[in-house]
């Protein structure tokens, strides 16, 4: 089966009922998305499909033929982080970091469809994602910063060379 992840097509050899999360981590070695509960209750596995945030632990790959999957790895690189990643670095918004990729992807989905999302909207949108370390205030701060960075990034030429 073919999966489109972060802009490139991957041929995967897995049972169509396999949850996307396992395929990402085990077959494609994209380890950003995490396994937390496997029940759609924690959000650690959140990735984007066609611009929407979804729980990859509950999404069998048979549903994903021809759809665009995006993970944190698709938001930027270590040398050239995307605005969402940059914002989390600048705000140092992680304790253990386990929940962070899910938080980023849900926030990214929100800000992509709604660049001017209000603080309240950000908070409500992130509700399905749990953070056991209590990093919530920093996470919210980071997402608000990302909201600004994404706007600047949208205006600047797409060089990806933003310096801190």
């Amino acid at each position, binding site marked *: 089966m073919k999966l489109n992840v972060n802009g490139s097509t991957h041929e995967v050899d897995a049972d*169509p*009922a*396999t*949850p996307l999360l396992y395929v990402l981590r085990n077959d494609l070695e994209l380890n950003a998305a995490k396994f937390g509960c*496997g*029940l*759609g*209750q924690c959000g650690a596995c959140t990735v984007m*499909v*066609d611009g*929407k*945030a*979804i*729980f990859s632990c*509950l*999404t*069998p790959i*048979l*549903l994903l033929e021809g759809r665009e999957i995006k993970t944190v790895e698709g938001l930027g690189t270590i040398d050239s982080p995307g605005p969402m990643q940059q914002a989390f670095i600048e705000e140092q918004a992680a304790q253990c970091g386990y929940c962070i990729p899910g938080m980023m992807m849900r926030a990214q989905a929100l800000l992509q469809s709604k660049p001017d999302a209000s603080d309240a909207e950000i908070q409500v949108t992130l*509700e*399905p994602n749990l953070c056991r370390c209590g990093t919530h205030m920093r996470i919210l701060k980071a997402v608000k910063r990302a909201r600004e960075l994404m706007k600047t990034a949208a205006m600047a030429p797409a060089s990806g060379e933003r310096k801190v």
Partner: protein
Amino acid sequence: MKFGRFLTGLGALIVVGVAGAFVYAWKPEIAPIKPPERASFDQTLIEHGAKLAAVGNCTACHTNPGGKSFAGGLTIPTPFGTIYSSNITPDAETGIGTWSEAAFQRAMRDGVGRKGVHLYPAFPYDHFTNVSDDDNRALYAFLMTRQPVTATPPPNELPFPLNVRLVLAGWKMLFFRDGAYQADAGQNEEWNRGAYLVNGLGHCGACHTPRNSLGAEKASLHLAGGEAEGWSAFALDGSSSAPVVWDKDSLYTYLRQGWHPDHGVANGPMGEVTGNLGLLPDSDIRAMATYIASIMGEPSAERRANSDKLLEEIKSGPITSAISNDQSASGGKGAAIYQAACAVCHENGRPQPFGGLDLRLSSTVNAPDAQNAINMVLYGLPAASGRTSAIMPGFADVLTNNQLNDLLGYLRQHFTDQAAWTDVVQRAADTRTGKYHVSVRPSDGIERGPSNIGAEDQ
């Protein structure tokens, strides 16, 4: 000139009729009062009123989620247009602060506002007319001692002639019979108490009874299943879709705690109802259960046998196995979706209310139409804030309408004996676009429940 005389006679009749209708329709204003002091109400009466307001679920319509309690302004979509709920805080300008108790009693009994206007039956006075004077007095005491809020709802959006309140007099003439509840001497006290609560303040029929084209409940189909905020309100009579037959005890447990191991968790607008009933004493809940059980009646021997058999089968655990090889429904696609996305919760053996329900027990999967199943799969059951609650993730962003159809086709075939639903794709599309409006609530709906009221408002 017989014909001429006939015409004159007819004309006179019409004049008299119209005049009569006007007299019937015309209701006097009840003089405004100065908003009463809190001290003028007895504290126990206020507390009693709080419980009754919970039974009436007043807050559900008269509070905008996240807004001030009872300040109104909630959008209430009806087939005829949009109505905005009124402000029932004791604010003198914009609420009911100038209403005397007599004005309040009349609104409940006759559906007429203080100034004499007819109220839209979105305010369920066809039920509230049953409420006793004493209970109305307590409700009045409770409402008049809430925090006054200055808020005027947006004007209703109703087409002509429905925007003319006089039309409501005609509606009332056709469908509305006023008068407090009269006990049925052939039934015991508990049954009568239940009937009073269910058909009066509880206004269960407002959702659970089907309505005619003019929006009135069909009296002949009392509690035979209706609609509420985009959800099917299941039948509470003999046509109930519950695979395990309800009885007095299970109804009691369900209403008391908001879930039952053989039936699952109250969801959609019902979550809010069971949340609100939390304030009632056990005896009242039992009375409601008694009455509803009597409406459901004795199940047929066949239904009882199926129900018993199912309960026996459930004991031996979920029917996993063979699922992934089941190629029948939609080429096995629905089965694969179920196994990957649903079975982790619905077959993990974790008990209700936090585990997924074994879908063989589900009234939703057994229901006559697919609407609730669509709502549940698309939107799930959001977590209640600040407390433990049942939860189900929604799949709206994962499943296409065709995939949803595959899934529901499989559920229907694998877990029930019912015929396939044939309109899932279209219904799902209309649900997503909002053409068919669905409200999504956490399982206990406490955000607007009266137990929450006052925390911020007072």
